[in-house]
């Protein structure tokens, strides 16, 4: 039984901001289906009373004072920007 459909792959690709042609959708559908089949092996385990591990060390919230510190200048921050104008990063229009 196929666990993942091509429609789902297209939906996930959109969520992940990836563009795919039909051949790629085809390929990823098969491959993700294989990987998810492997993942379903975990269902053999009863984890009803198991706490999830989000972090392996016994760490508490790490707080710091919310204080402005020198880091990068505006010029430095823009150094790697593909496009800029008036000291800001420039992107194409968001709305049509």
């Amino acid at each position, binding site marked *: 039984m196929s666990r993942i459909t091509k429609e789902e792959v297209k939906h996930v690709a959109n969520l*992940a901001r990836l*563009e795919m042609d039909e051949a790629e959708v085809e390929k*990823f559908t098969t491959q993700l289906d294989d990987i998810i089949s492997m*993942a379903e092996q975990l269902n053999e385990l009863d984890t009803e009373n198991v706490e999830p*591990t989000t972090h*392996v060390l016994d760490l508490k919230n*790490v707080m*710091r004072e919310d204080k402005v510190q020198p880091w990068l200048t505006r010029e430095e921050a823009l150094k*790697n920007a*593909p496009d800029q104008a008036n000291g800001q990063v420039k992107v194409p229009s968001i709305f049509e």
Partner: protein
Amino acid sequence: MFDKSISELHSLLHKKELSVSELVQTSFDRIHTVDEKVKAFMTLNEEGAMQAAKALDGKLGTEEARGLLFGLPVGVKDNIVTKGLRTTASSQLLSNFEPLHNATVVERLNAAETITVGKLNMDEFAMGSSNENSGYFGTRNPWNTDYVPGGSSGGSAASVAAGEVFFSLGSDTGGSIRQPAAFCGVVGLKPTYGLVSRFGLIAFASSLDQIGPITNTVEDNAYLLQSIAGHDKMDSTSANVDVPDYLSSLTGDVKGLRIAVPKEYLAEGVDEDVKNSVLQSLKKLEELGATWDEVSLPHSKYAVATYYLLSSSEASANLARFDGVRYGVRAEAENLLDLYKKTRSEGFGDEVKRRIMLGTFALSSGYYDAYYKKAQKVRTLIKNDFEKVFEDYDVIIGPTTPTPAFKVGEKIDNPLTMYANDILTIPVNLAGVPAISVPCGLSNGLPVGLQIIGKHFDEKTVYRVAHAFEQATDHHKAKPEL
């Protein structure tokens, strides 16, 4: 020259029998001779390194040159940011990226006055086990260039094995330091999660990633860890623990040491030569006064699935930042949404896309509990397996990888076969414990790695065992012919 240890090099520099410039030049000469075949380096820092070397030469013989790593050339994996020195993470998306700051580990190496000779090739964003997923070119195994060096820190391991640098930094999310170290016949340590700052490491899976040293010997490895370990306020997951003196643990004494050998690590699928090398190694440790018992880590077989769900989920979130807006290569587009999509689709390779897709799926509405949360729960069971064994034993020993290096092209077409290669290294990352790979033999001319796993923050015992084994054997003296 390239079989010299850190302490030998330090002594040569200290006695002024060698200048820093000569040493760094030797490194570049070697790179220019063999890197055409090995392809370990992504970017060279020749001008900057020679300039830095010259400046350090003026300090030779003074108090300022007392540090053990002073003037020694180092290679850095290309997912660790270096100020002003191109850092691509082997992704086309970052082909023009010049970081604005140094990773904490780079700052610490700079403080120890090492010299960064260049950035090392890897699987794109550290996703892979063969270096074939680099967005640029594949690094080759110095022992036989038809074979892969392992991954994702393939360049880091190959550069040390090929004698291009004396040591390097790698990163390990599911085996990415230990597996290439095993394949290339060098020493690689994944420290306890939190021991080494991740600040400036381009994140793949934040709950698993750790930076660690790759070296020729265990002693060199301990020197390097000593200089990079310790709390960093820039990394909120960095552990606030005292860094012990690792060198003092290299006593050669393993009398009374209790070793656990998981039966799952010598089971079906593990190559006969690998198995024999590990059993021989255990015999050697017995001769030295250690004892070993077979134990079980019953959830081992679930580690690969757990790892791919968790690491891919974290990656899908971490890699959202690569959108072509603030840095990187931006694709041409009419509107912002297209810009994101085109930039990412053109910039990422297949494996990276596959993992982003898997992670996005596992985190998406309706599947979160079934996949992501389930995997987090199984992670707890895997972690508990380790804790239970460590109640009665000092270290866990097994092979680093089920087989020696495989041929270029052999596994690249099937993601699941490639993933299975990390079956013995992945559980260690899920549990957050430290582990080292040391050479323990050859199989058809290719190195085999012995994996020694320790308790949280017990790198000292890991090093003590690895060093005692190394000193009692000649495996680390074998070098590839190039």
